[in-house]
């Protein structure tokens, strides 16, 4: 079972996280102050750590640097009420694997936990660069940028190609709009709900054209998932 350590001093938020992650099948331990959090995190054994930025005793950034100094590489997602653009970028630069501003949806947190866990998991195929992504009847050549589905050629705009590449590398995971925005466009602000949706629906239309089995799904209240139903 996947074990998550949540270091959060606000009981309501801690409860919200524990409940949400619990429902998704994670085992969640709560530490309510910085020192306790660091002590538990130092034991290792967790698959991911959800770390509040502002904590009594020891703040989140100090805990993170203490952990990294100890050689503990457990993925860390930083939570913060300091959700301004600058703070987000600063948080990411401080060595956390991801940064989430409060308030946030559990779905967003889940998607990001999943993403950092997979990102930090050892690559199965070694260091050989991936040049071709295959999924079901979808074939994506990363070098020639040629995309075919069941032998049918699909023409994609460069941005649509990047979108598909990102979704394919996170197959069977929920990918949120902000994750797409951050990875595909490299911007950290929220341009409003529709903007990304329209891009995704265009890509979906091109992929699923001709009555093929739908590959790209909308996950209500969270984002998208490329994969089987």
């Amino acid at each position, binding site marked *: 079972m996947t074990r998550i350590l949540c270091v959060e001093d606000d009981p309501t938020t801690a409860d919200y996280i524990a409940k949400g992650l619990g429902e998704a099948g994670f085992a969640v331990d709560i530490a309510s102050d910085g020192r306790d959090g660091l002590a538990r995190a130092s034991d290792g054994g967790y698959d991911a750590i959800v770390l509040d930025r502002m904590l009594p005793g020891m703040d989140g950034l100090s805990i993170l640097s203490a952990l990294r100094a100890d050689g503990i590489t457990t993925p860390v997602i930083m939570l913060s009420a300091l*959700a*301004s*653009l*600058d703070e987000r*970028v600063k948080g990411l630069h401080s060595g956390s694997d991801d940064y989430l501003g409060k*308030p946030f949806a559990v779905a967003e947190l889940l998607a990001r936990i999943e993403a950092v866990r997979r990102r930090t998991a050892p690559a199965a195929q070694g260091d050989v660069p991936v040049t071709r992504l295959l999924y079901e009847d979808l074939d994506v050549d990363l070098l020639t940028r040629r995309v075919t589905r069941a032998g049918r050629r699909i023409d994609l705009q460069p*941005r649509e190609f990047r979108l598909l590449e990102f979704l394919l590398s996170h197959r069977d995971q929920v990918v949120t709009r902000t994750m797409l925005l951050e990875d595909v*466009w490299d*911007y*950290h*602000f*929220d*341009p*409003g709900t*529709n*903007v990304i949706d*329209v*891009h995704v629906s*265009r890509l979906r239309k091109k992929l699923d054209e001709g009555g093929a089995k739908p590959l790209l799904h909308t996950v209500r209240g969270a984002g998208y998932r490329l994969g089987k139903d």
Partner: protein
Amino acid sequence: MPTPPARGHRPRWPRSTTARITLLVFVAMVGTSAIILGFIARVTQGQLDADARTLITAEREAIVATFNRNGPAAARDVIIAELLIPGPLAVRLEDAGHHGVAGNLTAWPAGLPRQTEFQRIGLLRNGHDAAEPFAVTSFTLANGYRLLVGRSLAEEERLTATLTTSLFAAVGLALLLATGISFLVTSAIARRIENIANVAVAVSAGDLARRVEVQANGAGDAFDRLGTALNAMLARIETLVDELRSVTDGLAHDLRSPLTRLKARIDRVQRDGDSSGTDIAAIGTEADALLAMLENSLEISRAEAGIGRDRFVAMDLAALARDMVDMYEPLADDNGVRLTAIAADAVPITAHRELLGRALSNLIDNALRYGAAGGVIEVAAEATTAGARLTVADHGPGIAPADRDGALRRFGRLDAARSARGAGLGLALAAAIARLHGGALTLHANRPGLRVTIDLPQQDQG
């Protein structure tokens, strides 16, 4: 922050400062006077000795010359002639048997060598009541004769004594004056500092309107300058506090209606339940809008406060324009709008990429929201002589010149019935981001439509 000293202690410090400075001046004066007096005494003494030495040497030379040329008797005559007139001279010429030949001394002074260039010694001359200080020189002549010539220093010592007395009197007077003046000056300074401190205390206590009194003729001494600077600072603080107050009022005002709607929906769900889930969804939307409004408002405040200047990077404004057009193009297309970028040539600038992206995204969002009817929206990035310019132009209804200021104000929504998201903060945020870069956002008529430009000056590197 250290706690300020209790109020009862505060008036004590200027007085003790006065005492300290006065004491300091006093000690400094005493020290300087001692050095000067010591120096004068040394120089004076040295000069007097030198004078006496010259005189007695000359006298001795004259007697020795006569003795050598014409013998002891001639020398005796010279000595007798010299001593006829009462003066400061003391002379003794004696033969090998220590018998006095001439002079006004009864015996050779005990301990005086037979030959010495210059020596101080006390001597009692014949016909005098008391011994006087003398500068003497002695000389051994032929046939065992020896000569002593001396000059009384009594006159010089009286002079030195007078000089010393008057010097001490002058120094004492100067000390008194200096102490008095330093006391007066220091207490005047302390009074003016206390005046400024009182204003600071009053302002800390909440009276932001208090100002330091500055002399009317202005631009006077350092205290006037300090007072003027302090007053300028206080005026700035007062303005900022007023601004903050108006922002808070505006925010409270704008938050009230969505919060009231939120509350009404929650009440309804509590009363009737929400079988369809639409109310809960609407509550979520409303909450999201509130959060967006709050975030925008905070982002504006941060930009206005200049936060983010440390994150300026070298970037291409044209690439940013193309990125944003690329991001919004499908959405525009769905709304029947052709969104085009006129940004082929690179426009290198130093700026906050994220914030500038956000500003441009807000402008495009606004254009799509209010100018979609025009069918075409152009986004341009170009280099200008002063720096760089971003333009978003639509062909919609535009904004009347009279309403343009209002559109740029925070919470300055043109139409209160418009959708909650953004809540009129989009333009205000873009304008704040332009100002963060030292630039300006301007609204122009596009005949028809609205053309928004952000002019960015060349940033100083480093």
